[in-house]
């Protein structure tokens, strides 16, 4: 799943550890999410979107896959 987490994080000049701490996850988890290797749970995805003041769809994009 594609996402704009890295873009939104760097726009705030935050490090991965900074974002991880604000979300309650590790720096490695943030890195795995940014590189698309880890799809966050729905709860974490909502936390990420809320932290950046965006809707879920503005942060995450599943490529229009309805399946």
């Amino acid at each position, binding site marked *: 799943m594609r996402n704009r987490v890295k873009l939104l994080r760097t726009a705030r000049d935050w490090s991965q550890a*900074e974002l991880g*701490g604000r979300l309650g996850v590790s720096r490695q988890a943030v890195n795995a999410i940014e590189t698309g290797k880890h799809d966050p749970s729905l709860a974490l995805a909502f936390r990420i979107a809320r932290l950046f003041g965006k809707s879920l769809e503005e942060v995450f994009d599943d490529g229009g896959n309805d399946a």
Partner: protein
Amino acid sequence: MTEGTMRNGPGSGEQAERRGRQRFVRVFVLCALGAFVVGVLGRLGRQPDYSLTRETAIALALFVPILFAVGTWRLLAASDERELRHNIGAAVVGSCFYGLVYPSWLFLWMGRLVPEPNHYVLFAATGIAAFAGYLWPKLRGF
């Protein structure tokens, strides 16, 4: 400049992330210390024929399950969802390994083709398989 920037040094998020990491490492070190105590107790209570004294056997039979249960509980409590996913994956790999290897070994032994299944070997091999299942996604960055 915003709080917690890459140029300004650690912000509140970075400090929280570091505290979380330290909590995880602290619990891990305590578990490792507990495992070391088990090893020392087993060594001290060993008799010349490699059996254990009754007191040591009871102490270890109580201490090891408690250490395992409490250690697992505290480690998972200090883990984020990615770490949790890796641990669940490791548990699945370990369980599948045991479920595949033990019956085969048992049936081959019942057919008098191989020696009787060895508990120590099975336990250690299952642990190694679970650890490999834990490391695999980590090494691939998942």
